[in-house]
């Protein structure tokens, strides 16, 4: 009930009251609860009402770390990965150190710095590469004992291909689980020049990290030929659900 304690037609009586009009007479709008917001509502008597503020947007994807490779290396490490996300996404733009055309760096990701083949990856996928006659190859849909997951190849740094980098992403789902395997998948690759030998590779790989341990560390490893400094980078993101 509107209360005009002064008698001038403005009905204010309690801290936070607001006076407005219902179109005919002055009316009092009692203050809402903390953090409610005043909203225009044509169906309300006063045309205004206190309502609950809309929920804040939940971050979908947050950057965990970024590693720019300033000098040639064979390994890039992300350690102490926070366990506060649902999934991980690794994104990169990289090439190898070889200066010999056609010599590529095999490119793997190793979880938790495992050193023996106690963890088996199920790996299934396709890749297309080398040249126009090599075509698509299927990796066997079987468990492969290895300590890391092969992603693809990093292009050489030979004259004429210095601009060519491998770009792509690797998704690791449910990485913080301590009771389930972690599915992972990637699509990435590179291409250079016209139908030449070792022109490039497009690769799709899928698998499981067959451990119940949470993933706390990832190493990106390039084999005989390392990761070229000066332009390569890797970025790790956490995905919230």
């Amino acid at each position, binding site marked *: 009930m509107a209360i005009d304690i002064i008698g001038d037609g403005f009905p204010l009586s309690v801290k*936070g009251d607001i006076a407005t009009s219902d179109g005919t007479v002055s009316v009092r709008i009692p203050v809402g609860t903390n953090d409610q917001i005043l909203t225009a509502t044509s169906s309300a008597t006063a045309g205004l009402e206190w309502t609950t503020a809309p929920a804040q947007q939940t971050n979908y994807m947050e950057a965990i770390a970024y590693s720019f490779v300033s000098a040639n290396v064979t390994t890039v490490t992300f350690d102490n990965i926070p366990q506060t996300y649902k999934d991980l996404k690794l994104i990169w733009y990289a090439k190898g150190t070889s200066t010999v055309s056609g010599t590529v760096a095999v490119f793997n990701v190793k979880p938790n710095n495992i050193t023996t083949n106690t963890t088996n990856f199920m790996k299934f996928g396709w890749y297309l590469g080398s040249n126009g006659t090599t075509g698509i190859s299927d990796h066997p849909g079987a468990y492969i004992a290895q300590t890391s997951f092969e992603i693809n190849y990093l292009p050489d740094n030979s004259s004429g291909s210095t601009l060519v980098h491998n770009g792509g992403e690797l998704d690791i789902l449910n990485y913080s689980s301590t009771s389930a395997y972690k599915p992972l998948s990637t699509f990435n690759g590179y291409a250079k020049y*016209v139908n030449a030998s070792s022109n490039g590779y497009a690769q799709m790989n899928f698998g499981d990290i067959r451990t119940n341990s949470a993933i706390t560390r990832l190493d990106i490893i390039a084999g005989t030929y390392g990761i070229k400094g000066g332009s390569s980078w890797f970025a790790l993101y956490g995905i919230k659900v």
Partner: protein
Amino acid sequence: MMPNNPLYPATTKGDIVSFDGSSRIRVAVGTSGQTLRASSSADSGIAWLQQATTTSDSYALISSTSLSTTATTISISGLSAYTNITSGTKEFVAFVITGRLKSTSSGSISNLYFYINSDSATTATTYNSVSIEITPRTDATTASTNGIRDTWYAGNSANGMICATSDTDLFTANNFSQFIVKVYGPFSSGSSDQSAPSVTVESSRIFDDNVAVIEHGQIKKSVFTYNSNASPFNSITFVQTDPTRPFASGCEIRVYGIRKYGA
């Protein structure tokens, strides 16, 4: 308005008259974008406050565009304002371009392709790609001969092709082709090897159910190298090469950015 009137202490545009428990009180209007909130700690019991915003989401919509009429191209530009260099203040390390496109009519048409910046060159060393294309073979006559077709696009055609040149009924009026183009970089200009973005494309299309063709759909994954460092990545344009079947009204593309850590 009655300035300095204790019974009605509003003096300025946007003022609100409230009550502090004993007297009427003026609550000055907030700044644009603020919302009026109940706040028991304020003298008046209410306060204008800035809505909290989320700034740490690393996946952000940058721009979008849609066609209100038919057109043979659709593009988004101005992206160099967001691109990342190794020590710069610009914040994105990669872009994700999503889109749905269709033509105004069905039939045998030319390529759908994209080009970067204004570089529509068709030289073999400008755009190179390899592709994994999952589709029925063009010479298939029964479903049993459908299968995977690997394709080696050598950049000797038109820029970044998303769909194969030999296909018929590339689009129909009722079905959109969908695609996700991801562009990774540094994107700085100059002669260093940091300049050329790497591009992956995932696309799919499907025909009308009542179209009597064997080749009724396609899934395709490609990787491209845009082999140029002439200028930083700034725009991407999708082109329908057959002007008699332009993109239809309602086609749209969106560009998202992936922020670098700390940006």
